[in-house]
């Protein structure tokens, strides 16, 4: 009697040109167990041995990631831009320039910047949930179009039709900005399906929060991604709270990497407070995705602000929040650059001033951009402009 040992990383990952066709599992141990259910070879036990790679902070330098000094400066600058943008957005929300929900990305900037530095922006695809401002800015969307969208103005990336939760940029291949938790993850898998079908070499980074792990859509999408060998990285941006519910209160298994075992997918744990760690993880798993091997990343991060603007944050202590702020990705990046003499204090100050001005300009742009015309309410619903709406 043999013990069945399955290793999550062990399966061959040859690229398939077979479109969406299911892969042939000629050596599937699952199949064997079923077929031999009443025979002598029925296993006495099943042992699952899986190794998850990890990507801790402060392990990777920019040279080994192939990032230029310029890119490093861009990463710092963009993280700062995201933070100042979000802080200003919070202020504008207080002034009622922004309505609805506003979910800020403060604290999580390293995730978006590390990801953007690891892919071919404009060729690879990205989709995320409603906390989407940071990724939009990291992909190169302008602060102007982002702020104007929050203001509900025609100059916004979605012409004021989407708002905070629904940033889209076809040019940057940001496929949203999605408001229903987990519902966009099958879409991300479908975007990857189309990359493979068209054989254009693209991959899709599919971000979702820890809260989404509880959704059935993730289960279905993960299985389809692995079954069809799609060029996708499923990325859990684990900021440790689904609104006010900590992962310990929501999940029987809080090591989300373990999820991947059920889908026969590799997984890795990434410290999301260092953009280089994120970048390295996405470079490695992006390469696998391009070879037809989807994977799951759990990126641990932390949001400094509440879930949304109305959140009193009674579910966590001030001490916890402060200790996380000591692990700040922007400060880490600044220290990294100073240590290596990549930049001096004067340059930092110049960047700070530039970023501050860029965000102030974005507010002015958003303020000055017109509201959508009332008749625009009927635009962009159907392809044809003469659809017979009911009045």
């Amino acid at each position: 009697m043999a013990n069945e040992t399955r290793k999550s990383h062990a399966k061959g990952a040859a690229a398939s040109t077979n479109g969406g066709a299911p892969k042939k599992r000629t050596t599937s141990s699952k199949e064997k167990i079923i077929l031999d259910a009443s025979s002598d070879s029925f296993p006495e036990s099943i042992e699952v041995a899986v190794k998850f790679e990890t990507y801790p902070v402060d392990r990777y330098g920019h040279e080994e990631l192939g990032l230029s000094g310029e890119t490093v400066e861009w990463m710092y600058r963009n993280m700062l831009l995201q933070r100042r943008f979000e802080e200003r957005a919070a202020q504008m929300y207080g002034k009622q320039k922004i309505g609805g929900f506003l979910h800020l990305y403060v604290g999580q900037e390293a995730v978006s910047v590390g990801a953007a530095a690891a892919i071919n922006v404009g060729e690879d695809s990205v989709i995320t949930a409603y906390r989407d401002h940071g990724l939009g800015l990291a992909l190169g969307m302008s602060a102007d179009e982002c702020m104007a969208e929050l203001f509900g103005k025609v100059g916004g990336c979605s012409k004021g039709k989407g708002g905070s939760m629904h940033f889209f940029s076809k040019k940057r291949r940001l496929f949203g900005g999605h408001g229903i938790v987990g519902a966009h993850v099958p879409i991300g898998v479908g975007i990857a399906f189309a990359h493979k079908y068209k054989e254009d070499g693209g991959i899709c980074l599919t971000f979702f929060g820890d809260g989404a792990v509880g959704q059935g859509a993730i289960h279905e999408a993960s299985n389809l991604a692995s079954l069809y060998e799609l060029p996708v990285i499923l990325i859990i941006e684990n900021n440790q709270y689904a609104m006010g519910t900590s992962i310990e209160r929501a999940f029987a298994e809080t090591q989300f990497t373990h999820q991947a075992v059920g889908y026969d997918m590799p997984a890795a744990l990434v410290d999301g407070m260092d953009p280089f760690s994120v970048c390295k993880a996405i470079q490695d798993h992006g390469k696998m995705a391009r070879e037809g091997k989807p994977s799951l990343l759990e990126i641990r991060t932390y949001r400094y602000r509440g879930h949304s603007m109305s959140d009193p944050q009674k579910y966590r202590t001030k001490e916890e929040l402060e200790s996380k702020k000591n692990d700040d990705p922007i400060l880490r990046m600044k220290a990294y650059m100073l240590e290596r003499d990549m930049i001096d204090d004067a340059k930092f100050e110049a960047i700070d001033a530039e970023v501050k001005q860029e965000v102030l300009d974005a507010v002015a742009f958003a303020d000055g951009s017109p509201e959508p015309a009332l008749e625009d309410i009927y635009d962009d619903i159907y392809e044809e402009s003469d659809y017979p709406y009911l009045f």
Partner: protein
Amino acid sequence: MAVLQFREAIRAAMTEEMERDERIFLMGEEVAEYNGAYKVSEGMLAKFGPKRVIDTPISENGFAGLGVGAAMNGLRPIIEFMTFNFSFVAIDQIVNNAAKIRYMSGGQYKIPIVFRGPNGAAGQLAATHNTSTESIYATLPGIKVISPSNPDDAKGLLKSAIRDENPVIFLESESMYAMKGEVSDEEDYLIPIGKARIAREGDDVTIVAHGKSYWIALRVADRLAAESFNAEVIDPRTIRPLDIDTIVESIKKTNRCVIIDESTPFASISSEITYQIQERAFDWLDAPIVRITAKDTPTPYARNLMEHYMPGEDDAYEACRRVMYAD
């Protein structure tokens, strides 16, 4: 004109369109190796191969969403639901994603996708497997809903649906798949979406009926003809957008209307058509509009209850006589 079964007409539409456009693929449960749960896609795997005719696990939410993503990224998916009863576990993908992403993205992303499969009652399958979904999906701006009643319309409308740049819900019927009918041989046979068909002309009463109910309407019209009443039968064919103009024009002639609809009555297609008629043709009506629908209950299993549940030909016939004050 070739005589085709309803399922063959659908297959012909998909096959012709897939030959035309490589971006089109068919995905769903049992569509490939099993040749379709209702044999609609029979032979298509052999013809197009596994890249374009793709079996899925039982994961409607997953593969409906996959289809939306593929459509956003330049493909033109045909997603088959084995029946539309199972679309409810994927309804979020249709309601929130297929219908709204074009709008929310300010028109940046379009979603040319067809969700198709059988809809409505199909015999003694009890409550979960007999749902008529047209009024549910027709509430959604951003979606089109088509419900053909015969093989010819099925082919022409499905080809149009596949070419449409919007998400389309295409509603078929298990109990009509074997129905035979003449289908146009025209090289590129497209029926415009949003145009009703006047199936039979008459000036005494207008009967509006789509999908399977259309056949009840024809039988009722025959019975009335035997009594020298001329019923005009209108098959809307497309539910959203609804060709209300054709219906209103007919009522201006007949001044009476009976609607047959196998959905449950509350907030249904028949409610909507009735509202739109009173809005546009109130002064032309000589009798209240009457609708014959399924009972306002879950669908029962027992044969007698099931028959009682469905809109009946006798009820429709009597309704027509009533609005004509023939009794």
